């Protein structure tokens, strides 16, 4: 009854192509934003910011980045961690070596450098596809791991790199609430930009390359250009996410926080959340976050203690099983399930 399009006529193409064509969706997104910006700060605890919300948002941003590359443009990448690392270390080095470097600028410049790096490792995509390309991204991953461990200059000769105080334009973002709002704003803006890109000509070109690159070339799409653009944008998002992860979430970090496990984690978010969907990145991130918490809490509520090692193994099992489950039943992940749910809601309470 509630979720109805009756009476909502689109009288212009602009209305039809709006991001949220259905009025209820528009109301929904406004509500979510209100909850996120105002509601959460009223009720959240310190721990939920630092332990849940901030990492969730940052990884969702990385998942958007990977989704652009793998979900929209069809280029499989196992090197997300590497791009995040490049963003983090680039931003860090800019801050400590350039006097009076604005931290916000450093984060975005870090993303820019990650974008260049992404283009470099995306060059093979001209000649190779599918999981052959994945090997190229693995090369990037392991090379970057080595680079930041070996070449001490990057971490300023300290075992861990330390984030600077977050003072931007004179405003200090030190409390968890302030950090949360900082990250939330950046993620919302970047998600909006991503959504704009994918619904316009850029996104269409990416999806054409994903679906059938031979046909895409024949209608005039320059393949290398399009693929490298996907690598660049995706790496930019991952780089910014990496810089945020280092500066805002961790504070002090070592290179291994961006290792291959991180790449797998983000890849799982994208698969489970839904390939080719900005919403899916958020759903996937939320899910990947929820599972370890559940694994830790549920046995405890039943009075059965489990060791952290066992919890880690159970996590791996559950993720593995879920990936298989989603690939079999719904390759488009949670985002598609969400869409199906909305379609059913449109009819509810009528059966058809």
């Amino acid at each position: 009854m509630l979720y109805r399009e009756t009476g909502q006529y689109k009288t212009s193409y602009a209305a039809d192509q709006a991001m949220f064509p259905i009025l209820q969706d528009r109301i929904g997104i406004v509500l979510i934003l209100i909850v996120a910006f105002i509601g959460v700060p009223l009720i959240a605890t310190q721990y939920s910011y630092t332990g849940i919300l901030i990492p969730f948002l940052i990884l969702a941003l990385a998942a958007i980045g990977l989704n652009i590359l793998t979900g929209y443009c069809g280029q499989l990448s196992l090197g997300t961690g590497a791009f995040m690392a490049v963003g983090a270390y680039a931003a860090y080095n800019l801050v400590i070596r350039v006097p009076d470097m604005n931290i916000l600028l450093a984060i975005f410049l870090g993303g820019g450098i990650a974008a260049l790096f992404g283009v470099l490792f995306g060059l093979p995509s001209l000649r190779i596809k599918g999981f052959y390309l994945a090997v190229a991204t693995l090369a990037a991953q392991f090379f970057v791991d080595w680079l930041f461990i070996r070449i001490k200059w990057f971490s300023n000769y300290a075992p861990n790199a330390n984030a600077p105080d977050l003072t931007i334009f004179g405003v200090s973002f030190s409390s968890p609430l302030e950090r949360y709002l900082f990250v939330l704003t950046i993620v919302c803006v970047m998600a909006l930009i991503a959504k704009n890109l994918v619904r316009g000509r850029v996104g269409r070109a990416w999806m054409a390359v994903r679906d059938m690159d031979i046909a895409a070339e024949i209608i005039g799409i320059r393949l290398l250009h399009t693929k490298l653009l996907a690598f660049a944008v995706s790496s930019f998002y991952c780089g910014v996410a990496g810089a945020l992860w280092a500066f805002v979430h961790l504070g002090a970090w070592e290179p291994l926080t961006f290792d291959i496990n991180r790449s797998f984690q983000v890849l799982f978010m994208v698969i489970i959340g839904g390939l080719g969907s900005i919403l899916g990145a958020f759903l996937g991130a939320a899910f990947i976050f929820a599972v370890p918490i559940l694994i830790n809490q549920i046995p405890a509520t039943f009075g059965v203690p489990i060791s952290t090692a066992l919890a880690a193994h159970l996590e791996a099992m559950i993720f593995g099983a879920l990936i298989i489950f989603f690939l079999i039943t719904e390759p488009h992940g949670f985002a598609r399930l969400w869409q199906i749910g909305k379609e059913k809601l449109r009819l509810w309470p009528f059966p058809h």
Partner: protein
Amino acid sequence: MAFFFEVVLGGLLAGVLYSLVALGFVLIFKASGVFNFAQGAMVLFAALTLVRLMGWVPFWIAFPITCAVMIVLAFIIERVVLRPLVNQEGIILFMATLGIAFFLEGFGQTIWGSDIYTLDLGIPKDPMFILESIFDGGLLVDKLDVFAAAVAGALVVGLALFFQKTKVGLALRAVADDHQAAQSIGVPLNYIWLVVWSAAGIVALVAGMVWGAKLGVQFSIALVALKALPVLILGGFTSVPGAIIGGLIIGMGEKISEVYLGPIIGGGIENWFAYVLALVFLLFRPQGLFGDKIIERV
């Protein structure tokens, strides 16, 4: 000079270990076009099962039981994962094997525990000197490595014969070429996949035995799967001899670059050398040294 040969030899023998794992990949890829990311997890699982069983029964009982376990595992994988996904593109199947890998790693360690277990197969581990007549004092090699090389060689010969000479081998090659065409001439797809995954499982067991004897059975063995990727790129995904040669080249290359380049640009080159080499190959010869050329038609 002798030192150089020692390094080369050590690299070659390390390469044999990679080849053993790569063989399992080739089997599955050759027969079903699926890149089985879970091969490393299968190696770990097989090794874990074997070593834990050996805590209760002697090796000559534990080995057949583990083989049976791997066959059951193949059966389950075929039923639960492969059959529902039979017409999907390669990338979906690859991600499904990623899921299998994670599941197996978690499952194996949940059941058998995650300590490091020593695997004692009675193979002598002490080093010995060979080629004493050519090189002064001889070259130092590990007896275990020589054993591994012999095992790998036997496996290659066995597999090559299997593919070329037997009926099942012929059917496997047909399936690798074209699923639908093979089905239309009466090849039972599900049975073939069961055979292939079982064979890959047993190859994984052998690889697990050798690795386990050398390094101890531990989780890091699963990461060997990642190393096998460059081996396959070099050798070609569909070639059994290619897996061996690719492994040898990678093993040798890693050791040589570590020993000679390491002091110059910092150690740990072994971690990425294989991938960068694979990357170079991908750019100039994507089908590897022995693989089938990839042709696209419109």
